[in-house]
């Protein structure tokens, strides 16, 4: 043995075969301790969780044990050895490509293949008959394979499952489905172990439990934990703008010159924003000032897939200087040599921002560089809190989920499609998956009844059952059509109702009033992409909006297409849905509240912001870390109530709905409300302040937790958000089909019928399992009820009411959002600035 080889062997403590060590050395690398530890865990046949920062060789760590095992021929069976699952099909393809290098260079004897929705049918069939050694795929493809008659043959030899970006998967229903799939895999391949690869999370134990089979005796079992050391800490700064900080809005348009300068000074910049609308606006503004003609591109989920692929390819080739993007680029692949990340707008969460920052410099030893650009004054506080959280290394990833019943219903069909099963054994298997470990047998049986016949009290559908119990007590599918329909409707990702955006022949804007919809519009032009239907719901014909970097005018909606033409030389009139999908995290909110209540923290804030808070302290009061500040004041002949819960837009909207209902009942004549991530304001014709002073009602009574009782139930009856939630559950559970075999049903018609089903079901069977599933979603989803409930309980007995003579400084931002159509463009900004100035002067008593 040469000296070099002996040294290499001692380095890796015998875990890494010599030719692997040589391969590392040839590239100037050494196997990292966490990579070696994961090999040791694999050899001990343990489930394992690897938590590692971006750039730590996470994926290679996940695969090394597989490569070593396959190379050593330590296999009893031929067939599939390792299954790799990624949330993104592009990531699966990318990882397969990256694996080819070590496999080819070390001449390892193994076949690696991917399987995604794009894989041709012939290859998929071949993969089932002659499986590769390593298969890289997505959670949906895994479910399809598990529901095929070949599942047993295919998965029996399986030794390892590697789940990438585990932290991102487990927070959604996709994670529930994958957890059930994992339990199924364990039943088919008892020797299999699972490895999860994750970014840093708030609570690693949750992921460790997720990876390990749980037992009926409720003793918690966990996967082993392997942690890679954190990389160089990121260099995060907040843009110290020379401009006047806006009071409201999310576009950060005031800072475009400064953002542009930062782009010009860097090699390659990712500019993250929170919504498609913001991406459009920022992109348009950057090009307006792009004197250097820098290659700046746009990337978001609504753009045509071909266009996105072109942008990604250009990034990899280093042809771009900046990409303005949404969360579509949050995860996964290295799209090139990014050296700067700019986050325009609110960070929303500490972990979210940490991961975005991790997109710069995928090398551990160099620190990533990031600039946070707050778009308004509250966002300054949020950015400050996020920077402090990053410095403290704190995380706020969402808490673990309880498994959704609609997902379980879908998985039950999957199980039945694969072959007959016993309900008792299946219950044990399902509850071995951590999200379902606390599922009761009663709920399991109700879900099974739902999957079979709809599970209604009125047992009208027994003869139409999809799955039936034989005389031997085993369940099976009733006919092959059931399997076909299940395959067509698989997965937990329900697309929002999308409309294609199609260019049509321009019509004269002067002569088209009234006659716009008589007769067919010409549907001749090309499709520019897709847009959520509810984005368009607030547009009137002729209104202009930004899409794909262009200003378009809506001509009309025909079937599932929005017909538009190019509107030259105008500012877009409207941009619906300005706020992001993600509410401010509870953790950041708490930090912001602490910062607000403690003036000694303000020295780290821009002067304009500190001055604003100081005025608030003098004219009204500062919200405390735990209490709720409620202000009342008259303005323009109306009376306002403004509260500052800092619980995120979704919870605030729900609060607004419930508070206005309660005020209506108390004859306080509320007229409307507006909510943002930080505050809510309600206005009406009655002197709300006087009523509260007189204790009619008291502030405590107004904000009492019992608003989550009858008021909530009544509101849910008609809430569009609840109906959308129900629709998703109904489709996941297989109550409604996304596509009928042979004919596409458009989402527009589907929405209509899911609303009708919701109405009928609520009236006739309010405790039906699907309504329970929808309510469980509403707790954390679009209605964020859990957070609202926690807030109401936190502030009980701690409400500080300030009855003011005029609007307070802190109320200015939320007041500016009243009745305001989200607008971008210079003309609109001028109007806004004017309105803001008036309010500000008023607040100061000037």
């Amino acid at each position, binding site marked *: 043995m040469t000296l070099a080889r002996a040294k290499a062997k001692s380095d890796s403590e015998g875990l890494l075969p010599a030719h692997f060590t040589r391969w590392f050395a040839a590239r100037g690398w050494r196997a990292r301790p966490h990579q070696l530890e994961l090999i040791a865990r694999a050899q001990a046949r343990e489930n394992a969780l690897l938590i590692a920062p971006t750039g730590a060789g996470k994926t290679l760590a996940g695969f090394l044990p597989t490569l070593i095992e396959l190379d050593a021929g330590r296999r009893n069976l031929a067939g599939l050895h390792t299954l790799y699952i990624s949330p993104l099909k592009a990531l699966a393809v990318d990882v397969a490509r990256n694996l080819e290098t070590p496999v080819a260079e070390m001449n390892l004897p193994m076949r690696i293949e991917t399987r995604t929705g794009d894989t041709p049918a012939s290859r998929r069939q071949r993969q089932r008959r002659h499986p590769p050694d390593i298969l890289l795929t997505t959670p949906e493809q895994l479910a399809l394979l598990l529901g095929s008659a070949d599942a047993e043959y295919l998965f029996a030899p399986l030794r390892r499952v590697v789940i990438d970006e585990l932290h991102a998967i487990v927070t959604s229903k996709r994670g529930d489905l994958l957890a059930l799939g994992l339990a199924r895999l364990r039943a088919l391949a008892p020797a299999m172990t699972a490895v999860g690869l994750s970014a840093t999370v708030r609570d690693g134990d949750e992921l460790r439990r997720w990876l390990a089979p749980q037992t009926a005796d409720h003793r918690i079992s966990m996967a082993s934990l392997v942690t890679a050391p954190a990389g160089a800490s990121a260099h995060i700064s907040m843009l110290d703008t020379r401009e006047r900080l806006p009071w409201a809005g999310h576009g950060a348009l005031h800072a475009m010159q400064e953002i542009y300068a930062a782009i010009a000074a860097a090699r390659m910049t990712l500019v993250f924003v929170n919504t498609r609308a913001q991406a459009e606006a920022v992109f348009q503004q950057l090009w307006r000032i792009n004197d250097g003609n820098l290659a700046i591109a746009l990337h978001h989920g609504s753009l045509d897939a071909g266009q996105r692929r072109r942008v990604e390819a250009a990034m990899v080739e280093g042809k771009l200087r900046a990409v303005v993007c949404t969360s579509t680029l949050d995860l996964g692949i290295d799209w090139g040599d990014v050296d700067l990340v700019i986050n325009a707008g609110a960070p929303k969460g500490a972990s979210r921002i940490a991961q975005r920052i991790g997109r710069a410099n995928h090398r551990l030893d160099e620190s990533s560089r990031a600039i946070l650009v707050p778009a308004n004054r509250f966002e300054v506080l949020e950015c400050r809190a996020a920077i402090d959280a990053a410095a403290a290394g704190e995380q706020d990833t969402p808490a673990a989920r309880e498994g959704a019943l609609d997902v379980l219903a879908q998985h039950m069909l999957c199980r039945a499609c694969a072959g007959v099963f016993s309900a008792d054994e299946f219950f044990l298997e399902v509850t071995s998956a951590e999200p379902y470990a606390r599922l009761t047998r009663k709920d399991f049986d109700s879900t099974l009844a739902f999957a079979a016949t709809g599970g*209604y009290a009125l047992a009208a559908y027994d003869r139409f059952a999809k799955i039936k119990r034989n005389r031997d007590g085993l369940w099976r599918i009733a006919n092959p059509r059931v399997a076909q329909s299940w395959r067509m409707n698989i997965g937990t990702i329900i697309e929002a109702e999308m409309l294609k955006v199609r260019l049509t022949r321009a019509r004269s804007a002067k002569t088209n009033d009234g006659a*716009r919809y008589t007769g067919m519009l010409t549907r001749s032009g090309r499709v520019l992409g897709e847009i959520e239907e509810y984005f368009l719901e*607030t547009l009137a014909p002729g209104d202009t909006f930004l899409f794909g970097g262009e200003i378009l005018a809506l001509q009309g909606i*025909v079937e599932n297409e929005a017909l538009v033409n190019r509107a030259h030389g105008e500012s877009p009139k409207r941009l619906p849905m300005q706020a992001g999908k993600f509410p401010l995290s509870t953790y950041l909110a708490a930090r912001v509240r602490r910062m607000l209540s403690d003036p000694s923290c303000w020295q780290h804030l821009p002067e304009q912001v500190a001055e604003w808070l100081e005025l608030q302290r003098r004219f009204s009061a500062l919200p405390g870390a735990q209490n709720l500040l409620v202000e009342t004041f008259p303005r323009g002949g109306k009376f306002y109530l403004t509260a500052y819960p800092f619980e995120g837009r979704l919870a605030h909207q729900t609060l*607004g*709905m419930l508070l206005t209902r309660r005020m209506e009942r108390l004859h306080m004549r509320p007229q409307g409300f507006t909510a943002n991530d930080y505050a809510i304001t309600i206005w009406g014709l009655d002197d709300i302040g006087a009523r509260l002073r007189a204790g009619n009602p008291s502030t405590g009574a107004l904000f009492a937790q019992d608003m989550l009782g009858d008021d909530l139930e009544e509101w849910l009856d008609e809430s569009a958000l609840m109906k959308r939630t129900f629709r998703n559950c109904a489709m996941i559970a297989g109550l409604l089909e996304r596509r009928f075999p042979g004919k596409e049903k458009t989402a527009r018609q589907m929405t209509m019928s899911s609303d009708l089903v919701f109405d*009928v079901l609520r009236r006739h*069977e309010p405790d039906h399992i699907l309504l329970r599933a929808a309510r469980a979603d509403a707790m954390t989803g679009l209605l964020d009820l859990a957070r609202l409930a926690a807030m109401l309980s936190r502030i009980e007995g701690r409400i500080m009411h300030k009855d003011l003579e005029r609007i307070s400084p802190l109320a200015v931002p939320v007041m500016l959002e009243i009745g305001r159509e989200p607008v971008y463009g210079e003309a609109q900004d001028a109007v806004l600035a004017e309105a803001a100035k008036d309010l500000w002067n008023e607040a100061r008593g000037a």
Partner: protein
Amino acid sequence: MSGMPKLTAQGPAASRAALLRIADVDCLADCSGVMFIPGAQALVVADLHLEKGSAFAQRGLMLPPYDTQATLAALTRVIAHYAPKLVIALGDSFHDAQAGERLGMESRGELKALASGRDWIWIGGNHDPVIPDGLGELHSSFTLAPTTTGALTFRHEPSPALLNASSAAGEVAGHLHPAARAVTRSGSARRKCFIADGSRCILPAFGAYTGGLSIHDAAFNGLFSEGAIAYLLGRERVYRVAAAQCL
């Protein structure tokens, strides 16, 4: 984000219906989705689609089996309100030809009770070209042909060639399930609706599981003159909006 305005009633209970005129016959477009013709004491209802839920269940989509119950309950309420001498069902009253076999005993009884003491005309539609079995005396009033009463012709599918100027007669039809989205400054709402000009009215579908088709869909092309009005169904009243202003 602001709270959306709701389409809820403001006016007195008497305004639950809007007056519209077809071939100079006064008709009321009721917020439940039926039409009442005071002159003839006739109530017109379109597209009940009874037993649609069980039709889906046959194909493996287990929709709640309460739609027939819900539809008949709503129909019972509006018939009690207007106490018509004549009911005209404009076709697609039953979701398919086997709907009668699946119809529960209770629902049969309800149907018969509704029809007793008044005239009832079932016009056949594309979903129910024959009246389902087991409905007793209801059979005698089943017809596939359009029915004419005075100046108005009642039929399932609107006739394509009504818009010629010589025709003085009016038409009342169903089949298309019209719906429209009204847009205001502060939001929009999509509802089932009547759509009418002076010579024709298409009724919204009444059934609990019947959806809506946009009045701007190609299926409505050439059926209405430019000044057509949509009557959107609110909870307690009907909202009159020019069809051209709906999205």
